[in-house]
């Protein structure tokens, strides 16, 4: 039995007076129906302390178990809530044994919205597992992060 659909609204706004020849003022909103199907019924928000780590050994979100991996499409909001060091973001599209793909790094205070799909991103072409890895970009240091993800079904 599945639960009913949920709704989530996300708005991003940009403004700059000197980036382009004309003023930049742009605001875009997406209103998402988060489906209540079996693959689209989970969402979590968590705070982490992210250690410096080699690829594949940072904090894995969700935890490193097949049952908790994402099947299908998922959105991630990630913010570096630390004040000094960058936060590395990598994507792992298999449960184990695959080199993570680096998405980027967030400076302190920066945030991002990622749209992932394990069907597209899976390295062997089958729709199975997807996780995010976060770690501190500076050796022997840590930073903190907020991670909010919600699944959008297969």
């Amino acid at each position: 039995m599945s639960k009913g659909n949920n709704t989530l609204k996300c708005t991003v706004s940009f403004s700059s007076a000197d980036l382009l020849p004309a003023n930049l003022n742009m605001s875009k909103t997406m209103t998402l129906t988060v489906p209540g199907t079996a693959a689209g019924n989970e969402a979590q928000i968590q705070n982490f302390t992210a250690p410096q780590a080699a690829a594949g050994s940072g904090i894995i979100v969700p935890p490193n178990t097949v049952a908790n991996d994402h099947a299908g499409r998922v959105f991630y909001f990630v913010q570096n809530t630390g004040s000094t060091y960058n936060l590395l973001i990598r994507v792992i599209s298999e449960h184990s044994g695959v080199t993570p793909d680096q998405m980027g790094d967030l400076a302190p205070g920066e945030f991002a919205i990622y749209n992932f799909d394990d069907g597209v991103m899976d390295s062997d072409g089958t729709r199975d597992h997807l996780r995010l890895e976060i770690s501190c970009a500076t050796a022997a240091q840590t930073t903190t992060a907020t991670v909010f993800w919600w699944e959008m079904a297969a």
Partner: protein
Amino acid sequence: MATIKVNLSINSSDVLPFVVAIDESKEISTLSDANANSSNMGQLTVSTTALTINTEIDGGIDNRALVYIKNTGAVAAAGVSADPNIIVDDETAPIMEIAPGEFCFLPYNGGANSTLTVETASGTGYCDYLVIELT
């Protein structure tokens, strides 16, 4: 050097057991050097052939870049099929998939002189994009 202010809000009353209300702002500056030399903004008609979205950034994205991509294709409605999803690729693999009406926003850093492309799995899609080289 240029400065851009970004605001992101996320609101939902039923995705979690409590009301989600996230509202974050960040002012980001580009460096005054050759590595932060361009920004690129536009609209594309997308096919199964990958199109580069950082074409005006000399030599690719040197280090970090702010990236925004929105799938402006039609959302499915009664009697109308949705336009295809937009697949975003870096130089090694697909990294994101954006359905019609959705967008992504991220500080991208895939390594030196990297390139981002967009494509569809089949059919014709549409997207808006903004790439700002930061460092």
